[in-house]
Structures are given as structure tokens and as C-alpha cells.
């Protein structure tokens, strides 16, 4: 039976719950991914960036699952994450296939520079 863990963030400071840490990390991942999507031009990097955004979103769901469950985590977010991962994986696979086709057909591996 899982027991809620606590992370000590400093003496006398308020205790940060694990799920809160997860939440902060999730937001961080989300922002990193978002920045990368806009900043990177390489096809593969852009696809990876979308995966990082996805990781952020899923982690957020997981952190919510533990939110006010003292003993058992809420199963609904878990189901959502599993579904989400399946959907996201297929989208990523599709994106990769497209990138590969582009690379094979035109040799380009970056956005921009393509003929209009």
C-alpha cells in the first residue's frame, strides 16, 4: 500500500507534496517542449519537442491522480494517460514517417527553405 511521500524542501519551510513536485516538473517539461517546438527547425527535433510537451501533459495528469488520495490514487487519470500515450505514440509515429518521406524525397531535414 503506497504511503504518500514527502519531500523536505528546507528547514521550517512548508512541505512540498510529491504530486506538487510532479506538477511543477510537468509545467517545466511543457514549457521546455513548447519553446523547442518554436525554436528548433530540424524536423526530428520538432517531433521530439512535441513528445516533451506530451510528457508534461501526462505528468500533470499523474500528479493530479495522487492529489487528494491518501491511500489509493484516482484511477481515472491513469486511464487517461494510457489512452493519451497510445494516441500520442501513433501521432508521433505518423510524424516520423512523414519526416522520413520528406527526407527521402527531397533530402531536406529542416523546415524553411522548402519551395513555396
Amino acid at each position, binding site marked *: 500500500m503506497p504511503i504518500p511521500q514527502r519531500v523536505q524542501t528546507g528547514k521550517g519551510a512548508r512541505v512540498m507534496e510529491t504530486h506538487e513536485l510532479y506538477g511543477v516538473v510537468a509545467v517545466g517539461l511543457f514549457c521546455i517542449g513548447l519553446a523547442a517546438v518554436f525554436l528548433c527547425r530540424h524536423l526530428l527535433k520538432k517531433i521530439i519537442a512535441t513528445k516533451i510537451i506530451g510528457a508534461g501533459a501526462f505528468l500533470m495528469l499523474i500528479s493530479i491522480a495522487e492529489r487528494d488520495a491518501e491511500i489509493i490514487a484516482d484511477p481515472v487519470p491513469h486511464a487517461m494517460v494510457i489512452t493519451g500515450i497510445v494516441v500520442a505514440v501513433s501521432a508521433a509515429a505518423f510524424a516520423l514517417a512523414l519526416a522520413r518521406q520528406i527526407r527521402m*524525397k527531397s533530402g531536406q531535414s529542416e523546415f524553411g527553405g522548402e519551395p513555396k
Partner: protein
Amino acid sequence: MSALFQSSNLPAWLVLVPVIGGVVTFLLPVRLRGGVGLLFAALTTLPALFAGWLLTGGTSMRHALGGWEAPLGIALELDGLGAVFILMTAVVGLIVSIYARVYFSTVVPDPARASMFWPLWLLLWAGLNGMYLSEDLFNLYVVIEVVGIAAVGLAVLSGKTPALVAGLRYLIAAIVGSMAYLMGVALLFGATGVLDISMAAAALDSGPTARTAFALILLGLMVKTALFPLHFWLPPAHSSAEPPVSAILSALVLKGTFYIILRLWVEIFDVSLSFAAGQIVGALGATAVIWGSLQALRQDRLKLVIAHSSVAQIGYLFLLFPLITVPLGASGEAEWAIFAWTGAIYQVLAHGFAKAAFFLAIGVVVIAFGNDRRESILNLVGRLPMVTFAIGLAGVSLIGLPPSGGFLAKWMLLKAVFASGQWWWVPFILVGSLLTAGYIFMILRLAFAPADKEVPMRKVPRGLQLCALLLAIAAIVIALPAEWITGLLQGMSAFGDPVELMSNGGEAVR
């Protein structure tokens, strides 16, 4: 057995039929796919028409999938607003399917290339119907992804490099959009513990969480709806696809996410809205109207003109939000809200029909002359009169000239703008109309201009031209059953009501 066909199962059939169609066509050998695909398109239209008939007079029906009620199960709800979108999807979808059947069997020499059209399109259709029916926030995420992936799959059907690059750009934008949506849903779930829209609405309090969730969801969906300035992916993707696909993407797919924004705006996020939120979204829409039209005027290729025009026309839709988001105390006299609603819905319909007609007509031009450069349509009126006529009629509706669906939309929007006192939207609506007239008549002027030398022309099946004309005519006559359509809309609980806000701090009362 007969229980299966009860009218209460209608929402399920609306999704199930195209899904079955998608799977069946995928399993069939390539040469059979066209016929069977068209059959399933027709079969999908039937429950949609039935839904329109059933909901006349403004009722709604709820269907719990598998008999499990929310919060445990997932509910589908068919109300008037959804029915209007479903009907439009069905009518446009059926005509585009007929076009596609002829197009892929006679014009495209390589059947294998086209073979994926039917499974993807039917799946997309199922996803769209899902968007219009789903009562569950996470379920919406899934159908958004389904629609996104199927749409990109269709967009890259031609396999040419520009289409592939545009498709990948589209896909990445779509993934980012849906992830932002999912993040918002996660926050919302964290705040309320439910996913059912009406339950979440009841449980959600205003506050920073609700506001952040709202911003994320709105941003994600705005990317997918291609609202300025998040529209960058649209023109290349829509203009490089095959004609029936461009028609589907522009006329139907953009409307799906708009519908979700509208639904969430009035049903959940009324607690975290402020007058400013409506104004900001409206300002984006107004800018889109001007920007998209200006860009359309500058394009050399007809498909790009039409694709940029979509950016502008989508902008008009977002003028609904400032008009229905009013300070507290104003709602008692905000009878203009019903005009704003009607105007926006008519803009959806008129743009759906007209834009589909446009892309199909340009498709015929491309078949006939091999390209869609502006010069290629010189003397089009003498060579393809039916197509010119279709372009003219669709153009009339896009500009908003009477008598057409577009006219009704502009009339209602303008009326709401005046009546609400938000007169600052007037110039945008008008200048948008004039610019639209500019690029439409640029096309028509070329179509009437003499050609210096006659370019050889490939024969185009009459059926293709007829499909374009049919949709264009629909964009005009859609104005006639306005009474019936607004009657359908009464079935949506929020229809015609402004979202009421307190003037201080944007706290809303329910």
C-alpha cells in the same frame, strides 16, 4: 434487434456508421473502396438527416455509451447546435464524397495513391461527429487527435514533397494544440474531479486554476482552428492537398474545433471569463479578417487565395465571443445575443458550403488546365461556364451579398454589433467584405477576360462540375430555412443567452 435502431441510440450511430465504414474500406481491395466508401458516406448522411428531423423545434437527447452514466461512463449529447454542425458535415461530406468518387476513379491515374482516401475520410467524419456529440472532456481530446491525424493523412495523400512538408507542419501544430488542450483538461480535472462537461461546469469555481485551464484549452483549440496569429500552418496544408481533401479540411475540419471552443466558452468557462477575454478573442478574429483577406489578394495561385480566405472567414466566427460576453446587468436587455449566435452559425454554414464549392471548382480548373495559376483561368466563362457560375455563387456568399447564407450571417453579426453598442467591430466587418469582394472579383474578372492564346484543355467529367455547382447553390439557398435552423438551435441550453459577467474582476454568476 429493433432496440438497436431506437432513436435514443442515434448519437451512437452517428459515430459508429462512419467508423465501420472506415474499417471496412480499409480492409477491402483497392478497386472496391470507392464504391463502398461512397455507400458508407450515404449511410452516414441518413442518421444525420434523421437527427435534423428529430430535433426540429429544439429538443436534445442524451445517450450514455454502454448504459454507463457519467461520471463513470461517457455520455454523448445531441442538441440543436450539434445537429446543425452534423447536418452541415453530412451534406457537404456527401457531395464531396461523390466528387471524390468521380475524381479518384477517372482523373487520378494511380488508384493505389488514392486508396487511403476512403478509410481516412470516413474516420475523420466519425471524429467530427464525435466532436459534436461528446459530453466528455477527455473523450473530446481523443476525437480531436483522431480528426487531426486523419486530416493530416488526407492532406499528404498526393505524396508530393510540398504536401508532405505542409502536412508535417500541420501535424506538429495539431499535436501541440491537442497537448495544450490536454494540459488544460488535466488542470480542470484536478479542480473538479469530473470530465463530464455539465458536471465540470457545476463544480468549477472561478480562480487562477480555472483561468489557466481556460487559457490552455483556448490556445490549443485556436491553433487547430487556425485563428490569427496561429494560422501559419493552414495555407500551405490546404492549398497543397487534393481538391476534395482541401474542401473537407477547409469547410469541415476547422469547424469542429470552433464548435468545441464555443461549447466550452458558454458551458464551462463562463466562470473565468471577463469582458476583456471576449474582446481579445474578438480582436484576434477581426485581425484575422483583415490579414487573411489582404494575404488572399496577394496570392498568385488560386488555391492559395482560397486558403488564405479561410483564415479571414474563420476570423468572422470569433466575433461571436465579444458579442455574447457582456457585463453583469446587461444581459437582461442583451437581446442581440440571439442575433450574434445566428450570425455566427450562419457564417459557419455559409463558409462551409461556399468554401467547399470553391475548392471543388478550383479542382476542376486544375484538372482542365494542369495548374491553378491566375492566368490559367482566362476566359474560363467561355470554356467552363458551369464552374465559373459555381465560383460566382460561392463568391457571392463569401462576400456576404444577398441573397445568400453569407448575407444572413453578416446581417445578423452587424445587427448584433450595433445593438450591443460594440460599434468598433463595424469597420472590420465591412473592410473584410470589401477585401473579399476584391479577391473574388479578381478571380471573376480573369474568368471573363479574353485569353491571348487558348491553352489546351483536358476534358473534365460533368459530375465534378455539378458537385461544385451544387454546393455553391447550397451556399445561397441556405438562407431560406433560417427559421428552421434557428429553431434547431433553441435545443441548446445556452443558445441566445449572453454569458453574463460581473463588471468587477470578471466573476460570473450562474
